[in-house]
């Protein structure tokens, strides 16, 4: 595992002009369980970072804390230059419109069409009601949503209900929804964990291709160590809520990373 280095988790992150995310000493407890114990790291603009770790290591909680979908107990989060913990509700909503979030279980609205689900990516920026349903949306937004669907190869099934899509198609619609946000950064929580290996490989390659083309910053969690090495510039490993590895992906091996799970 050459290139790997242990880092102190309580050190403050070095914030530079090109830093999209700076997490400093973030802690989170659920009852008696400490899920995050002072996590500190930064993500420069344009970098793809994989967060790995066993179940319960704190990966999903960390992603949610970065956007305050879960409120951290302590620590600081600077995202796209803004102090996330200091934002009021309106400021937080404005910040979230710039961050695409792809969930493990896609989280589409099952009874709405694929196109309406993609359109929801514009909810943060569109006028009241304009991005609720494709049937009520202005033509420009509908065309933009269709373009996003086309980029993930699903323009042909725009009118199909989301609960009638396959797992791979659903996740691609979720990616299209994130693209519809016109995001500056993408968070992805085990984006292909619910897919079979072939579909997972295909969706991950498409996802990374779209992100690289738009030079977006990416922070994603994964249990697939090969994906982490292949698709990320850098790998951060969590164990029991603390960072135990932060290293460039290029020097890492699956065998070496697997040892972190022991």
């Amino acid at each position, binding site marked *: 595992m050459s290139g790997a280095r242990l880092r102190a988790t309580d050190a403050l992150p070095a914030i530079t002009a090109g830093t999209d995310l700076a997490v400093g000493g973030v802690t989170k407890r659920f009852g008696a369980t400490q899920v995050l114990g002072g996590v500190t790291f930064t993500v420069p603009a344009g970098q793809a970072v994989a967060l790995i770790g066993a179940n319960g290591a704190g990966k999903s909680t960390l992603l949610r804390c970065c*956007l305050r*979908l879960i409120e951290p107990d302590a620590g600081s989060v600077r995202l796209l230059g803004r102090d996330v913990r200091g934002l009021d509700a309106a400021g*937080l*909503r*404005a*910040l*979230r*419109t710039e*961050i695409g*979030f792809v*969930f493990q*279980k896609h*989280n*589409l*609205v*099952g*009874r*709405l069409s694929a196109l*309406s689900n993609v359109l*929801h*990516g514009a*909810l*943060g920026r569109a006028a*009241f*009601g304009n*991005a*609720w*349903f494709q049937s009520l949306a202005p033509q420009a937004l509908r065309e933009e949503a269709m373009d996003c669907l086309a980029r993930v190869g699903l323009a042909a099934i725009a009118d199909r209900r989301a609960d009638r899509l396959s797992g791979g198609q659903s996740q691609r619609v*979720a990616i299209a*929804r994130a693209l519809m*946000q016109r995001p500056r950064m993408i*968070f992805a929580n085990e984006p292909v964990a619910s897919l079979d290996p072939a579909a997972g490989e295909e969706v991950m390659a498409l996802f990374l291709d779209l992100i690289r083309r738009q030079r977006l910053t990416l922070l994603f969690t994964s249990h697939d160590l090969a994906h982490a090495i292949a698709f990320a510039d850098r790998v951060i490993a969590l164990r029991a809520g603390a960072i135990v590895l932060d290293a460039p992906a290029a020097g890492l091996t699956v065998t070496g990373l697997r040892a972190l799970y022991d």
Partner: protein
Amino acid sequence: MTEPPRPPPRFEQPSLPAFAAYLALIAFFVVSLSGTGASISDFVSGLPQIARLVGEMLPPSTARLGPVSWALLETFQMAFVGTVIGVLLSVPIAVLATRHLSPHPAIYHAARTHIAFFRTVPDLVWALLFVVSVGLGPFAGTLAIIVDKIGFCGRFFAEAMEEAERGPQEALAAIGARRSAKVACAVLPAAMPSFVATSLFSLEKATRSSVILGLVGAGGIGIELKVAMDLFSYDEAATIILAIFALVLLVERASAWLRARMI
């Protein structure tokens, strides 16, 4: 050779407090039965009266079929308009009464209290109040149905929204969507099957209620039935009862058909 393990007892032995509670429940039922004045001999001696009444009802009279049909139509109009307006008003109140969607805990509790109040006061009482306020006629009955539907649908709509899948709601929150967008785009579509089922059941319930509301002068066919019974025109009363049966059956069948197609 070892003995196979013995299965657990078929029934759990109740604890002493549970046993005492069962006994108290049985004792209360016996006391209540006596409180209702239930009497087998009265029931048996009343059977010939029932037979006589049924005899006088047959054959049903068709003399007032025209007015009865109009009253029946008015009954359904009250039920339909009352249900539609009640359902529409229930949605925003139910949103306020949904724990994770309500803007403030005080608003949540106020909305829940209003819904509980509307539901627990019987529709006949609402009809009496509205007859006093807006006068005799179907408008009073329609208002009573509206209030009753807010109490009924408000509760079930709120529960359906509380049970709606949270994943899509979290996804929209992560996009930066406002509360109104989360409700419109994620909560309402998820709760829609339950809304449709509850609304159609409400229409069935309102159709039955609107018959009774006429008895207090709140419009509909109930007043026709009361007059027929008061004048001992049992053959006319039979026609009215059959008409009510046909209407309720029709609404239930139509509702079941719609439910099967819309959910």
